């Protein structure tokens, strides 16, 4: 609907009355304002920094950090650089965000479905959880879970529910597998079994398409899945080694540790965010027209398959966009780790800022990290959304 250009020469007033031109002017004016403010801020900041003779730049990243980090997903020691320390913090943030989003999705979908359960006490119970989970500030929840974790007894009086498993205020210690060739062959066996399982599925579908009957592959598949890793272990020169934690000195040594800070942060974030996701899933399911239920029932599908095959795929269209926001929220909220001492990106950044005095640069770095993480989540969720979008409309 472009306006028809008048035949006579256009005066200024005519130009101003042209909606297209006017829109352009406003857009340009807004853009100019934004740029002007940005330039002003940059100019003022760099002027102030220069006047104080402060060192600006990222050279400090290559200096030795000289401080220890409680736990890190990548190898780190105080002899490493500041860059490595920040990377260790980032790795912790990414791991928390990943497991947080995963667990939130699993429990959110489960609770969302339960919230609509015809069983009144079950749905009410989930309702109570949702109200508590989303109405209590996350920071308070984190303090609560953290103090629960640290109120456990000390390592010398650790609870040992299973041999080799110790629960104390130092966290959860589990026996861990030592990665030697036994583990390698076991994992290889698992991969082979996985491929075999997919091949079986493919074959079964082919048979079903041809004959209309699906062969029973479950027993075969499970057998392959169970036997292949064992066969791998048999092939290995040395059998698998297990590192069992033991109490030595102040704490447990060996095995895999799950620190109270990690546990409290992950649990707190999942508890809080799942409450929102539960509501999103419930809303998504309820947005599917009643006719879909009735049609599926008319086809004779059992309730569980109606949910899985008919309702949830349609509900996903409503669920995914707000779910993406919750993933992003969870990732950002993980920065509350500073309150309970989990060494996430912000926690490490704070230490780096204090030791180097390079506040502006470090803030720049972690803002960039969060932006990248969240834009990645957005991009992935947009692709997922496109995959679930109605096709052919």
């Amino acid at each position, binding site marked *: 609907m472009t306006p028809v250009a008048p035949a006579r020469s256009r005066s200024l007033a005519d130009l101003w009355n042209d909606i297209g031109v006017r829109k352009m002017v406003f857009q340009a004016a807004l853009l100019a304002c934004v740029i002007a403010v940005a330039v002003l*801020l940059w100019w*003022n*900041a760099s002027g*102030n*920094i220069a*006047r*104080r*003779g*402060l*060192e600006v730049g990222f050279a400090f990243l290559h200096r030795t950090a*000289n*401080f*220890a*980090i*409680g*736990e890190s997903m990548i190898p780190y020691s*105080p002899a490493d650089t500041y860059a490595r320390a920040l990377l260790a913090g980032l790795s912790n943030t990414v791991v928390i965000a990943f497991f947080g989003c995963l667990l939130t999705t699993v429990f959110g979908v489960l609770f969302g479905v339960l919230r609509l359960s015809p069983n009144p006490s079950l749905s009410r119970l989930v309702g109570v959880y949702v109200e508590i989970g989303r109405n209590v500030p996350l*920071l308070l929840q984190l*303090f609560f879970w953290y*103090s629960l974790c*640290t*109120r456990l*007894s*000390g390592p010398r009086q650790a609870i040992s529910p299973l041999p080799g498993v110790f629960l104390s*205020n*130092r966290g959860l210690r589990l026996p861990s597998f030592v990665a030697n060739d036994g583990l390698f062959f076991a994992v290889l066996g698992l991969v082979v079994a996985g491929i075999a399982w997919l091949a079986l599925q493919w074959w079964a579908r082919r048979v079903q398409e041809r004959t209309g009957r699906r062969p029973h592959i479950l027993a075969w598949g499970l057998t392959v899945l169970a036997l292949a890793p064992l066969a791998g272990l048999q092939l290995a020169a040395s059998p698998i080694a297990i590192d069992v934690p033991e109490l*030595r*000195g*102040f*704490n447990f*040594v060996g095995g895999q540790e799950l620190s*109270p*800070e990690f546990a409290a942060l992950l649990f707190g974030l999942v508890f809080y965010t799942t409450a929102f996701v539960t509501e999103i899933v419930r809303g998504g399911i309820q947005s599917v027209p009643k006719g879909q239920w009735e049609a599926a029932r008319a086809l004779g599908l059992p309730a569980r398959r109606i949910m899985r095959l008919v309702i949830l795929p349609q509900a996903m269209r409503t669920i995914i966009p707000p779910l993406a926001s919750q993933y992003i929220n969870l990732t950002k909220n993980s*920065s*509350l780790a*500073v*309150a*309970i*001492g989990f*060494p996430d990106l*912000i*926690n490490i*950044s*704070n*230490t780096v*800022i*204090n*030791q180097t*005095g390079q*506040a*502006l640069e470090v*803030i720049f770095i972690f803002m960039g990290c969060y932006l990248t993480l969240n834009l990645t989540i957005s991009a992935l969720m947009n692709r997922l959304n496109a995959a679930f979008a109605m096709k052919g409309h």
Partner: protein
Amino acid sequence: MSRFAAALFGAASLAFIAPAQAGSTLDAIKARGSLKCAVQGPSNPGFGVPGSGGKWIGFNVELCRAIAATIFGDADKIQISALTTQTRFPALQSGEVDVLTNNTTYVMTRDTQLKFNFPAISFMDGQGILVPKKLNVASGKDLNGATVCVQPGTTTELALTDFFRKNNMKFTPVVIQSRDELTRAYADGRCDALTSDATTLAAQRSTLANPAEHIILPDRLSKEPLGIAVRQGDEEFRDIIAWSFNTLVNAEELGITQANVDEMAKSTDPEIRRFLGVEPGLGAALGVNEKYAYTIIKQIGNYGELYEKYLGEKTPLAIPRGLNRLYTQGGALYTPPSR
């Protein structure tokens, strides 16, 4: 979130706030009519805590009052802001405060890289380790494999790491921002030990359920000269701070107290007469009122009195005076003479 917000605010203040002191800091303070001091927030028992009626009280607050007494002849002309370890440096750099009297450790990089000056060392501290007595630990060197609670944002993390590396020992840090939360984690047994400046440990110990069950180990992981910090490049203001502080110490050395200062002003001792401004000269040399030293002692007291009142054996902190005794009494407190 407060930590992040604080850091962001600090950085933003560099971006938004135009430098306050185009001319001299002193002119700006006089024009404003008050001295802007930063003490450690949210509070630091003994050194600076909010009292009734919104007035701050504590050892570091008195240092700030001493400077105000020199400049204005009135110790009450101060504005206190409580800054965290994260916000204090940007606040000083941006001119939001004139001076830090918040237990900032005087170290080389802060003097050089951060462009500060430390006109005075107000307290000689050292990083210590607090452990429960029941651990039966006699020295920091027995702590191999221990979990240590530490507050971020100070030189403490660095000294802790250096100590363990130097002695070939391993440790796991638990780094929590809020001092209260950190103390709670220690009290709950999340950590075997808690490390900080010995004065801070004394304050933290006083808040535990049973302070007598915890000891501060004899090791000192670092020397922590706590100083008064200002921006570099204003010698006039720097002198005023240095001599305000030296006055507190020299008064103790000369035996002048808040109670006897009027008596001492009648003294015939020429050193005391010069010091208290009965004989003019020193005040004019510093560019302030001739009676500035008299004013400080009259309104605040001397160093020893302040120590006694806020940190000494009769207070809940009960920090032994140790190094902070006068050099004449076996300590390390040695200031240049006022003459």
